[in-house]
């Protein structure tokens, strides 16, 4: 194995609660697809499962000019829209800009660094890789995990990665030396109705489902590309329920979503062609083996 090859990325467990701890490193959990940048005889950007991200995002080829020769980097690919990551735009491959947020260095200087402590790998990363073009060296803070988590939450970013500074890199393993705390919760929910606002845009009413009962939990902006199914319409329409992935900050005591946004939705099945029997879960596009998987 050498640079240019695929390294399955190391994964994190979900922490029960945000913490601050000496000897730990806290960095932004960027909301995108995991990306292993492998620059050897060939230049490759692999998804979490080893698929070719350059095929999905040809614009990333430009990254080659901004990555040094013979390195393997761990990164998150994000779509950058209006000053922040936009997962829906990434998924639909319609973002004006993409960034590779680089946060670990697995190979450099002719050798693998996976047995080296994170502290050392970060030093190598900052020495070797500079923020230029669409490559951005991600930063973080030591020890102050809770403060970092609050800052992340205030800026409505996805979450925090907590990593032990003395830990090695375990390819493909989900290890407690990497933990994540999410500022945003992500769930698959059911869309049961649509409502048109004064300005013509649509909202979806989303619901939890228990058995055969739907329980309304809030409203989210419908994606701009969505239109209600044909037939007699009106500003309020019941829909044949279908699933969408929603992210939200928290739930109120009554279970309602706060700061909810749609992350992904079954575009080609809009209008509720999905049947009520289908189980909420990743929809066919992102669920298929060929599609990149979210990081973390």
């Amino acid at each position, binding site marked *: 194995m050498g640079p240019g090859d695929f390294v399955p990325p190391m994964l994190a467990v979900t922490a029960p609660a945000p913490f*601050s701890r000496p000897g730990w490193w806290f960095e*932004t959990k960027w909301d995108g697809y995991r990306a292993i940048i492998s620059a050897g005889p060939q230049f490759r950007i692999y998804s979490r499962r080893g698929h070719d991200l350059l095929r999905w995002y040809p614009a990333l080829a430009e990254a080659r000019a901004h990555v040094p020769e013979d390195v393997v980097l761990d990164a998150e690919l994000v779509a950058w829209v209006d000053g922040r990551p936009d997962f829906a735009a990434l998924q639909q491959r319609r973002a004006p800009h993409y960034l590779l947020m680089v946060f670990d260095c697995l190979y450099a200087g002719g050798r693998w660094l996976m047995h080296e402590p994170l502290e050392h790998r970060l030093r190598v990363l900052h020495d070797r890789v500079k923020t230029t073009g669409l490559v951005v060296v991600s*930063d973080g*803070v030591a020890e102050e995990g809770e*403060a970092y988590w*609050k800052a992340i939450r205030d*800026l409505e970013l996805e979450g925090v990665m907590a990593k032990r500074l003395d830990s090695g890199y375990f390819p493909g393993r989900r290890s407690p030396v990497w933990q994540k705390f999410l500022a945003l919760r992500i769930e698959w929910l059911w869309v049961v109705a649509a409502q048109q606002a004064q300005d013509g845009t649509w909202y979806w009413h989303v619901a939890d489902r228990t058995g055969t009962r739907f329980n309304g939990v809030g409203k989210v902006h419908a994606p701009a590309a969505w239109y209600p199914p044909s037939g007699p319409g009106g500003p309020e329409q019941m829909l044949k329920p279908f699933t969408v992935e929603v992210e939200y900050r928290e739930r109120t005591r009554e279970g309602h979503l706060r700061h909810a946004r749609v992350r992904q939705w079954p575009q080609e099945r809009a209008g509720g062609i999905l049947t009520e029997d289908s189980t909420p879960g990743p929809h066919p596009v992102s669920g298929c083996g060929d599609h990149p998987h979210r990081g973390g």
Partner: protein
Amino acid sequence: MRSLYKGIIGFGLVSIPIQVFKAMESERVATHWIHEPCHTRIQYQKFCPTCERAVPSEEVVTGAPLPDGRFVVLPPPEKEAATDHTITILNFPELREIDPVFYETSYWLKPGPGGQKAYALLTQVMREMGRVALAEMKLRSRPSLAVVRAYNDSTLMLHRMYYPESLRQEGASFGADLAQELAEKEMVMARTLVEHMAEPFVPENYPNEHRLERLRQIEALMPTAEMPQAAPQREVLDLMEKLKASVQARAQHGAGAG
């Protein structure tokens, strides 16, 4: 090479369509002011110190200052039509009658469609008779004098000129009264020296060394070239900066609180 504009040489009853091209390359190696941290090209803004803000171009007019500090606001220049680009020939002096002090900028003239024959005729005749055309021209709505001449046996060149009244006459007498003090012996010596150094002008003998040196310097620095930071990159760096600042602020107000 891109033409600056299309125009017409008016020559008696004949008009010759032509295209005007800048003849000289800028001698400066193109450089720009760059903001060092992000390698972005510096932008200029029109700033009003009274209103303390950047002003949009529609709020900007041209004014001529009066001695008492007032301004006369001038009407905006009229949009010129292509037909306004005329070069009207006034007369045909000899080239050596025109002092080089009046020359400003040189342009190549290329015959436009339908103008080839008249163009060739004018070129040939001026060359044969050793004469050049003094003309009045308009370039970018600014009128000026010009000389049109045959550069070689096929191509016309235009030299835009200053109006003679622009010459600062007082400089012409800077050397007066010095001549009577010269002794014949010194004159002979000086003449010998000049004769000794007399040489025809060979353009190739005078490369622009300074420019070449500058180009070599740029080439040597090529490996350090950096792309300007794109807006998303600036935004993501700002975002990371904000996160850190927020953590620091919280640390100062007591760890874990807030």
